């Protein structure tokens, strides 16, 4: 993407307001009871390669759980199993049990699109739909659910307010989503995800392509989102895990080494490998 061009778009369409104000005007979310995810004996493969080796884990409702670990340890694969995106990769498959509250996501009668509507996902690189306006991007999941007209507009506006984009984009909802800055695009993608009101939100390194200020905004947002949602966030950045997560999972080579309250992981890990990783001795 041409950054200079993006800046020009920003300036020309919103001359008075700078594209990224220092503080976000964000609307508080109505609290809601989140939903728990329980993984039991999950195995995932890429062809012959065994990427997730018999993992069992529970993500508590209304909590942020961070997954940390060196590259290639299976963090992303694990979260992609939770919304059944893993099986979209050719030759990849997963087996095991993942319960959303009491229901098995891998049950034989489960419709994968229904799973993905309950379990939203935010990706590493912001991926707004390039042919759609800001409004249509947020509305893209709603139209499918048959939500149209005023109630759709209301949901779109509410989602944009919740991610703190409203004051920045309310005067240009019909301009293309890709005209926004990188941080704004990622918040747009989060708005698109929460517009369909999922029960769980998965985030796969959502800040790795963002500058520190945009990262801070997304982190504040994550803290806010947990009032309503259960959140699982994959991160390369241990400071980020320490800032946003209630509990942290440390993974190594397709297995869970340790899952404990974040504070314990960083100050008093029970496994020697966790300690070596969080102190930067490897990985």
């Amino acid at each position, binding site marked *: 993407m*041409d950054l200079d061009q993006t800046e020009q778009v920003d300036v020309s369409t919103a001359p008075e307001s700078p594209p990224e104000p220092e503080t976000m005007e964000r609307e508080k979310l109505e609290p809601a009871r989140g939903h728990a995810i329980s993984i039991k004996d999950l195995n995932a493969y890429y062809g012959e390669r065994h990427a997730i080796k018999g993992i069992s884990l529970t993500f508590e409702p209304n909590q942020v759980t961070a997954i940390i670990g060196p590259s290639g340890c299976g963090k992303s694969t694990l979260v992609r199993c939770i919304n059944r995106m893993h099986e*979209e990769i*050719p030759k990849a498959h997963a087996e095991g049990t993942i319960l959303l509250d009491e229901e098995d996501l891998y049950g034989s009668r489960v419709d994968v699109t229904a799973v993905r509507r309950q379990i939203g996902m935010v990706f590493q690189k912001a991926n707004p739909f*390039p*042919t759609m306006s800001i409004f249509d991007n947020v509305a893209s*999941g709603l139209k499918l659910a048959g939500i149209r007209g005023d109630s759709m507009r209301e949901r779109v506006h509410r989602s944009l307010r919740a991610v703190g984009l409203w004051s920045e984009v309310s005067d240009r909802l019909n301009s293309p989503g890709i005209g926004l800055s990188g941080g704004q695009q990622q918040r747009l993608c989060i708005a698109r995800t929460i517009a369909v009101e999922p029960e769980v939100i998965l985030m796969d390194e959502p800040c790795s392509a963002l500058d520190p200020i945009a990262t801070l905004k997304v982190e504040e947002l994550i803290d806010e989102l947990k009032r309503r949602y259960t959140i699982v966030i994959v991160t390369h950045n241990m400071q980020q895990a320490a800032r946003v997560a209630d509990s942290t999972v440390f993974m190594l080579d397709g297995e869970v080494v340790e899952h404990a309250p974040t504070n314990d992981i960083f100050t008093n890990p029970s496994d020697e490998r966790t300690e070596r990783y969080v102190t930067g001795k490897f990985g």
Partner: protein
Amino acid sequence: MSVTTQTPPPPSRLTGGARQRRRKNVNRLMMGVSTLAALIALAVLALVLVDIVIKAAPALNLDFFTKNPVPFGQTGGGIADSIVGSAILIGLASAMAIPIGILVAIFTNEFAPPRLSSPIRFALDILNGVPTIVTGIFIYGLLVIGHTQSGWAGAIALAIVELPIVARSAQEVLALVPRSLKEAGLALGLRRWRIVLRIVLPTAAGGLVTGAVLGVARVAGETAPLLLTSSIFSNLGITTNPGVALPNIPVTIFTLSESPSPQDHAQAWAAALVLVAFVLIVSLVARTFNERSRRKIAD
């Protein structure tokens, strides 16, 4: 007494030796040869165009586009019937080939397992390589023998020529749509067909138009299939019924050029100019769409 022994100057590290000079010359030579080849290609195009324009000029006037052919021996007349006939043939062929071609590309790129999509891709390449006279004979055997020549037979033959061009270019364009966009759609719980319709096709639209338009340009000048399927027509004027053989520009060029009359030759050249101009305009349109689409995907 002067000292006669002169020490040779130390070899310069910057000018290079004989070997370096030789490499430099080879480099120059190859640059020259390839530039020449490019110029020859351009010159051929320019010669063809200039030649056509010069020879077509005497026959070009408004009547040429608006009047029908006149009986042999009379002067004047035009190729209005062939222009209309060609438009109908190309339109019918494209109405068949473009939707099917794009659907084939959607199937191979979005739905088919790799085990199935690469044989289909290969089959399309083969179909693209089939000489058009063979396509013509095939349709001749299938639809003309036992019936008569018809616009339908001609259009179907042209559609068979057009289909692989449209399908292969659509495959190339669809493959450019980033995987991350499809993943975003999947993660929202959209079904594949909806992702194709709402995300993939709009993103690739410009490129798809380019491929379709290039297919149209290609079949506009196809002669061999039409000689066998839509070449025997009476000079009765404009026909719009594809149930009978439709007059068309390529066959008209062929027939006029076989005539002993110099006026007919000039008309053949003028008809050729019409065809070349059409292909040129269509290709320019295709280019603009292509650039627009590339910009969109690059964003």
